[in-house]
């Protein structure tokens, strides 16, 4: 039974709407239950860490303490990578020593034992049970779709805090994509930072970070980028147009790389419609590519079917030829034996 306490995060019903919709769609299909932490509050993200270490620990700890009391025994799932990192950082701090835990208790002024674990949505969907359920529900494999899985930095670093996948070349999302028939490409910017809040605070400095991510995905033959974080999504999807404008001005070819949440693509493979999954409200047009690849997949399947038929025909032909040869050989041998027998007879005579 897959049941988790859910930490929705501030963007769940705003910029991360599509992520929430598609996650709920997938969760329902595979029988995974998410219970929102009652009265949760903002994790504080990097802004809290850059204001005060105490604040960075206290903000997430409050939501975790509530989860511990109200939803005992359930692991907390955070869909947003930023929330995931903040929650885990606070948790790891509290678990480090009894003094730390006591300090956190004082800061949040609540009972707290730091017993509830925090995992990311990607981790929850990568669990063996979830993967089996996903594999069972796929009705339409997303063949021909070359995806660059983008994990971002908060999902895998620092290693002491986020230790569920490799910090340089994580694989969990690639495996999920392969599970639904898509082709994950091997690319190098899986865990490069998208700039996070700095895209707002220091946009001029931070924009090249996004461009380089698109550049490497494109150079490695990806059709699209798949993410697991609403902030990464916002930075990539919303700002692609602006980057393309600058590229055109500089005489460079613009990118045409739509971005998806991994849950959207899983939903699609379950037979969901783009509008059911929130794919229709992306900034960069996201539906055409999927339609085109679906068409490609149909053609590929046709071609494969033709190739299979051709192969069967050749096999049959070959079998027939072998049978004919065998029959000829047998006839010849029989003749020779007869002749030999005749010679023998003559000799005997």
């Amino acid at each position, binding site marked *: 039974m897959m049941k988790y306490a859910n930490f929705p995060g501030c963007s769940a019903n705003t910029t991360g709407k599509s992520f929430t919709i598609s996650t709920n769609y997938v969760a329902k299909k595979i029988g995974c239950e998410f219970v929102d932490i009652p009265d949760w509050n903002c994790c504080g993200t990097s802004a809290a860490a850059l204001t005060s270490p105490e604040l960075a620990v206290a903000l997430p700890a409050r939501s975790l303490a509530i989860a511990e009391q109200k939803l005992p025994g359930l692991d907390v799932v955070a869909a947003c990578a930023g929330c995931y990192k903040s929650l885990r950082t606070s948790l790891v701090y509290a678990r480090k020593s009894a003094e730390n835990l006591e300090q956190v208790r004082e800061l949040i002024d609540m009972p707290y034992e730091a017993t509830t674990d925090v995992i990311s949505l990607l981790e929850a969907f990568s669990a063996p049970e979830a993967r089996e359920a996903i594999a069972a529900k796929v009705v339409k494999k997303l063949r021909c779709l070359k995806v660059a899985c983008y994990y971002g930095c908060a999902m895998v670093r620092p290693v002491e805090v986020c230790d569920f996948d*490799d910090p340089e070349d994580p694989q969990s999302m690639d495996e999920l994509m392969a599970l639904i028939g898509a082709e994950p490409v*091997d690319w*190098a*910017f899986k865990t490069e930072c998208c700039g996070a809040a700095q895209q707002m605070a220091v946009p001029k400095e931070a924009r090249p970070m996004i461009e380089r991510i698109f550049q490497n995905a494109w150079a*490695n033959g990806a059709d699209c980028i798949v993410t697991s974080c609403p902030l990464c999504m916002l930075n990539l999807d919303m700002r692609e147009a602006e980057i393309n404008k600058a590229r055109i001005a500089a005489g460079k070819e613009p990118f045409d790389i739509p971005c998806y949440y991994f849950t959207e693509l899983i939903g699609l493979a379950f037979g969901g419609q783009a509008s059911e999954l929130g794919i229709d409200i992306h900034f960069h047009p996201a539906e055409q590519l999927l339609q085109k690849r679906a068409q490609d997949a149909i053609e590929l399947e046709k071609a494969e079917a033709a190739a299979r038929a051709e192969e069967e025909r050749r096999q049959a032909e070959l079998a027939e030829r072998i049978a004919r040869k065998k029959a000829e050989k047998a006839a010849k041998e029989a003749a020779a034996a007869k002749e030999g027998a005749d010679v023998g007879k003559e000799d005997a005579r």
Partner: protein
Amino acid sequence: MSRIGVFLCYCGSNIAGTVDVEAVAEMARTLPGVVYVETNKYTCSDPGQEGVKNAIIEKGIDRVVVGPCSPRMHEPTWRKLLADTPVNPYMLEVANLREQCSWVHKDKAIATEKAKDLVKMAVAKVARLSPLHSTEIPVHKKALVIGGGIAGMQTALDIADAGFKVTIVERETSLGGKMVMLDKTFPTMDCSACICTPKMSEVGNHPNITVKSYSEVESVSGYIGNFEVTIREKAKYIDYTKCTGCGACETKCPSKVINEFEQGMSKRTAIYKMFPQAVPSKPVIDAEHCRMLQEGKCGVCAKVCPTGAINYQDEDKLTTETYGAIVFATGYKLIDWKPLYPEYGGGKYPDVITGLQFERLVNASGPTEGHILRPSDNKEPKSVVIIKCVGSRDPNKGKAYCSRACCMYSAKHAHQYLDKVPDGRCYVFYMDVRTPGKGYDEFYMNTVHDGAQYLRGRVSKIYKEGDKLICKGEDTLTSQQVTVAADMVVLETAMVPADGIDELAAKFTVGRDADGWLVEAHAKLRPVETNTAGIYLAGTAQGPKDIPDSVCQAGAAASKVIGLLNKDKLESNPQISRVNEALCQGDGACANICPYGAISIVEKQFRENSRKVTRPVAQVNPGLCQGCGACTVTCRAGAMDLMGYTNESIMREVDALCQW
């Protein structure tokens, strides 16, 4: 009751100037057990020594206290003197009246009081000493060298040239080790094979050297002069007495296997010689990949062999021999960088290679016949990045230490690349260039003049865009991020101890440091000896080294071995630990802390209360024990004691000082 003779020395005025020696002598006469006291102007002089000898015989003395200079100065002199008398040389105690009394105090009365105390202590101790006898250990005049790389070969040749028999055990099918894989050697750029293969054949042909290739040490027992070693010679499936090494079998074998010698960059057959100049120059069958041995079908090699040397029924052979000395020349391997550096692609880019792969690429007998062609598409790389310290100086991912040889061989690689690809570009990322060695810095500067671009900084990431490998680094000298779009990247990876050294070292009780290298007895003064007497170190078994250093150390280890084998017998130090088996509980605490592995726990049968009882007791190996006494304190039962420094004698010394 003991008959103690006390011989006090004036040492001219050295002692007598500050100590009233006669007063001390007067006191000594009153001490229990003392039967004779004599003073002398110079006891260590010939007449002085003669006097001592005469007194011993005349007065029937059975133990001796001398009160001259420090025992560190003349203790051996006194022991030698006693050896010529009926007194056992270990029934001796020296009171240090000069260095630790007369020379450090000015007031005669006070110094005399102290001298009296020192003599009291010595008398008290000597009264409790018992005679000790050194035993003679025979020395088997034969050495075992483990490892047939350049260090092992040099050690073996030096020992063999001195006239002693040597056996080399080599795990691989041929001698040569890592050196024979290299293309050229810095700083002189000699062809490595040209200077290494003659050594290999010299070793192979030396009348005093037995080469056991494809063999490993199975077990060992014994001690200095008498190591009994069992060697497992793996099945070669070829009768070397019949094989002529013609190579017909290799040309016909149908199985193709990844070639380890070429660092995985080409294939070899299942019946193979490691490389053309291998010694012994005969093939073996790699059983794991042989179709005949795996599936029972094939047998091509047996069919083509003109001398009928193939024997599919061959089995491992065990032989046991006794050796007087053992040299570890087990060498190194390169660290497996792939799991450690995912940011460098973790092995998924075929054109990110190691230095050893580069050596094979640039070698005329290598997989590309010496043309530098990158593995992915066999194109000549026009831009090469060399990264130093991959796994070295990186405690986060690899090893904290510096691998010592990389600065030089990376300069060599840059030089070789620019030599073979004159229109190519070469970038070397480094943190420091360390070139202490004759002609080394000049070599590095020449490489810089060849056009190698040295960049001070560590590369953070290598990734692929198109068919280029993008290397992101910082030139810390200008504080700029730099990127290079390279065709090929060479990682100069750290040296780590060879596989299996942990087990081997444990068999011989040779210590290993935190990184796994074998530990020398003293970093400065005994660099080629181990803490186990009779076992020596040569080459990179002890730590990262280049070829000249390995050869030097090999010679040093050989000279130690020759010094040992030159002796017919060793005299054991009798001042070693002794077990009181009545008290020993056999719990092995002593064995656990002994740094020399000298104590073992054995089952022994005793007759106790008219019954036969079998129980474990500690046993001290006199060939291994060095007499430190650490075990004596750790024994809870007090069963362990140190001869010459027994608990009883030290306690009485203390008592003498306090109460007499």
